[in-house]
């Protein structure tokens, strides 16, 4: 039961701090913590992404009966198709969680720079993506008898995932406002992330096949430039995308 007026403490004026770098970082941290804590309880997002990713590599394993040489050439493509599809599932679910109970409005009502919400969501999505990738890589290594523990490959996965999540988080916040959000996100996302996927596949293949660094650098540079540009675009546009 609610306490009666006479029992409750008197209203004391609380001074909410003005927006600044500290409030930005605190809000960003709060959003990341909230996403991880909610996922620890429900395990909806990670389990869906993982099951989907593992099914994709299993299907490829049985569908493509590959010799050792062909396997080396298709590995990067299979990996990035798996990451991209599983990532879309995660991005959709992550933003749907905000929309379902009107929580996105709750976030937007907070007196913080709204890009803190974007970066918080993006970092949460990136962590989920990394967890899925960390599980998929050893499973893939075993199924395809291929050694994927290569520093260069991990660098490409890091850069590719950052670009994919930077754009994906922005577009999922746009798609979630529509009734056809599940269908709309991949339609919006895949054309925009084509440069990331091509550069990631080429870069991964280069490291796995031991190609000269001089030939791999252009793909790494493309990934770095893409990551910087789209993170900046998201920073500048998120506020307009989420407001009616």
């Amino acid at each position, binding site marked *: 039961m609610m*306490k*009666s007026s006479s029992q409750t403490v008197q209203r004391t004026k609380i001074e909410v701090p*003005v927006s600044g770098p500290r409030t930005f970082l605190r*809000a960003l941290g709060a959003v990341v913590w909230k996403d991880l804590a909610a996922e620890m*309880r429900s395990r909806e997002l990670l389990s869906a992404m993982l099951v989907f990713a593992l099914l994709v590599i299993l299907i490829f394993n049985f569908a493509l009966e590959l010799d050792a040489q062909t396997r080396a050439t298709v590995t990067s493509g299979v990996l990035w198709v798996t990451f991209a599809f599983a990532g879309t599932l995660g991005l959709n679910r992550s933003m749907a969680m905000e929309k379902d109970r009107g929580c996105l409005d*709750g*976030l*937007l*009502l*907070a007196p913080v720079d709204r890009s803190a919400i974007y970066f918080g969501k993006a970092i949460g999505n990136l962590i989920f993506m990394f967890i899925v990738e960390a599980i998929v890589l050893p499973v893939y290594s075993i199924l395809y008898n291929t050694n994927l523990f290569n520093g260069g490959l991990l660098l490409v996965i890091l850069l590719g995932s950052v670009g994919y999540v930077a754009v994906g988080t922005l577009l999922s916040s746009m798609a979630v406002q529509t009734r056809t959000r599940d269908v709309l996100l991949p339609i919006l996302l895949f054309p925009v992330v084509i440069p990331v996927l091509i550069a990631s596949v080429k870069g991964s293949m280069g490291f796995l096949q031991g190609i000269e660094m001089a030939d791999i650098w252009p793909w790494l540079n493309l990934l770095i430039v893409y990551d910087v540009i789209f993170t900046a675009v998201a920073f500048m546009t998120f506020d307009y995308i989420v407001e009616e």
Partner: protein
Amino acid sequence: MDTMIEVRKLIKRFGLKTILRGLDFQVEAGEFVALLGPNGAGKTTFLRILASLSRPAMGQVRIAGYALPAQASAVRRRLGVVSHQPLLYGDLTAEENLRFYGRMYGVPALDERVMEVLELVGLTARRRDLVRTFSRGMQQRLAIGRAVLHDPDVMLFDEPHTGLDQDASAMLDNVLREVAARGRTVVMTSHDLARTADLASRFDILSRGVIAGSVKRSEIDPNELLAYYRKTINQPAGRN
């Protein structure tokens, strides 16, 4: 008295449809205004503009002296919003939800404040339970707790009684009275005239995108409120 909310010539369009047509609205500090109107009158749209969740096509909005959308962050610091959706995370506990929103608002001495608010809304005993296990009434009380956590000067309620049974509604009324009794300015949209007649100090009727009528509780017999409401929404456009 200080003016807490001031709206001038507000226009809002969705595509070709104009929802708000040059709406003027003013609320003094400490007033409890019930915003009444038929379905589709634009009550929720108007409240979303006041809450800085939606941008108007034209017009001026000032809350606590700050202009929207230019000073939206300053407005949000002074605003608490409760809608018919709870804006709470089902997979977090009541305490975790308040703690999360407290961090978003930068509420000082957060542990104490969270306990104080849980006490206010009568959920201390359920503070470690997941919100998805709560009844609709409990979720709505926690939603009010979330909205008052940072001690806002202005509270906006968008049909907070939606989906509540009689007991839960009565309990919510107690929380609303508590919130208003602490000197806050309250604007609440509702369909339920009987319920608002008991709570509000002023009744504004939104019809055809403008405030078509406004009456203070001291100026009207609560039994005549329904007749006044019907007369106002049925009068030809342009006659206030």
